[in-house]
């Protein structure tokens, strides 16, 4: 059993509790997100881009006080996460909101404002 902690806005969107428990055999980042989106289809596109399948630039994945955001999606998750002892956290990055996307990401240089 995997424990996934959702950020507040996605919890509201999904109508879910803060912690979602998922049964995932051979848990990887991709398998966990697939299972999460299967249970809550309204989360499709909010964590991973609908076209590329890649993590959205301002979403981060943390576990065991480490940043797993840039790990390979098919790499096995740590045993503590796979066993449910420690949660897998999905986080909206501190730099998020309507500010420009980080350098090198899709959307670089966009102002994110309709004021133009």
């Amino acid at each position: 059993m995997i424990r996934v902690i959702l950020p507040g806005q996605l919890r509201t969107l999904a109508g879910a509790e803060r912690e979602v428990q998922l049964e995932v055999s051979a848990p990887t980042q991709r398998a966990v997100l697939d299972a999460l989106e299967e249970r809550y289809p309204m989360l499709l596109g909010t964590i991973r881009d609908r076209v590329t399948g890649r993590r959205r630039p301002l979403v981060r994945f943390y576990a065991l006080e480490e940043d797993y955001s840039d790990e390979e999606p098919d790499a096995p998750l740590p045993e503590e996460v796979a066993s449910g002892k420690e949660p897998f956290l999905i986080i909206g990055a501190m730099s998020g909101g309507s500010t420009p996307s980080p350098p090198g990401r899709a959307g670089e240089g966009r102002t994110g404002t309709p004021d133009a």
Partner: protein
Amino acid sequence: MSQVRLLVGTRKGAFIFTSDEGRERWDITGPHFPGWEIYHLKGSPSDPNRLYASQSTGWFGQVLQRSDDGGKSWQPVNNDFRYEGEVGPHKWYDGSPHPYEFQRVWHLEPSLHNPDVVYAGVEDAALFRSDDGGRSWRELPGLRQHPSASEWAPGAGGLCLHSIVLDPKTEGRMYIAISAAGVFKSDDGGESWKPANKGLRSAQIPDEDAEVGHCVHHIAMHPSRPDTLFMQKHWDVMRTDDGAESWQEVSGNLPTDFGFVIDIHAHEPETIYVVPITSDQHHFVMDGKLRVYRSRTGGNEWEALTNGLPQDNCYVNVLRDAMSVDDCESSGVYFGTSGGQVYASNDAGDTWQTLAHDLPGVLSVEVQRIP
């Protein structure tokens, strides 16, 4: 007595205002979708309780919401906006080629006749249509595949398709506007498009009267005269009387002809409203005074409407989708500001009341009359 409902999208959620036809006392609910940017929400003309809302954030991208009960409850619908066929480049800010990438939905335009049919104008500029109430979307790719599309360049807000106008009299005729490409017209329901910018002049582009490349901010049509459209361009207020085959400037005596919104009185197709903004460098109203300008002559001759609006130390903007008119007997006019104020007039702009002082910055305002 019918009810009037105001749908207000802001930088941090949506708010719904309701009143009776007198429009003196308003109830406000919200924020709906707190914390999310609500670029636009709009009701179906054929089923006013069917609403669509575009919800997005920089963190979690685009969500589309639908309500079947006038905004009391909402259901997320499909947010899969996938460009069709080969996805080429447009111009980036620095002039280099940049691939089209879906960013967000700017504008939702429900069909005039079928509540399950709705168009979505998106950034990077493209037009999508749903025939099943938002459960699925398909691009109308003829627009993005227009031969000029590789030359389209974003305005400061992005390469956005922000205006969709459906002709109520000619089946299949529609207009869209893109910043900064201009107006395009279709006579076949959006399958094929032609630029419709003849008469526009923009000093910000190398060829001032180019076929495309103009930063059109908003267009509006009165349903009784679908061949007449009004436009607020980056600079200049324009009109056409031949279905956008040619445009003429009608800025006339406006103190500045930069602005974003333009709208038309519900019963007087030659009465139009704009909110002049100082300049493209100063995105706030002139001289610290919030003034709506009204022309009763279809342009050129304008009068300032100030009764009830702040006339000191006011430095707000009014964005392109943030004005709407109702069709009550005495037509109402509504607009919201970047400072989070919502103003309403129940006498065609002669006097104004403040409906809300302190909302998040307003992105869109749409009014509905509910039987």
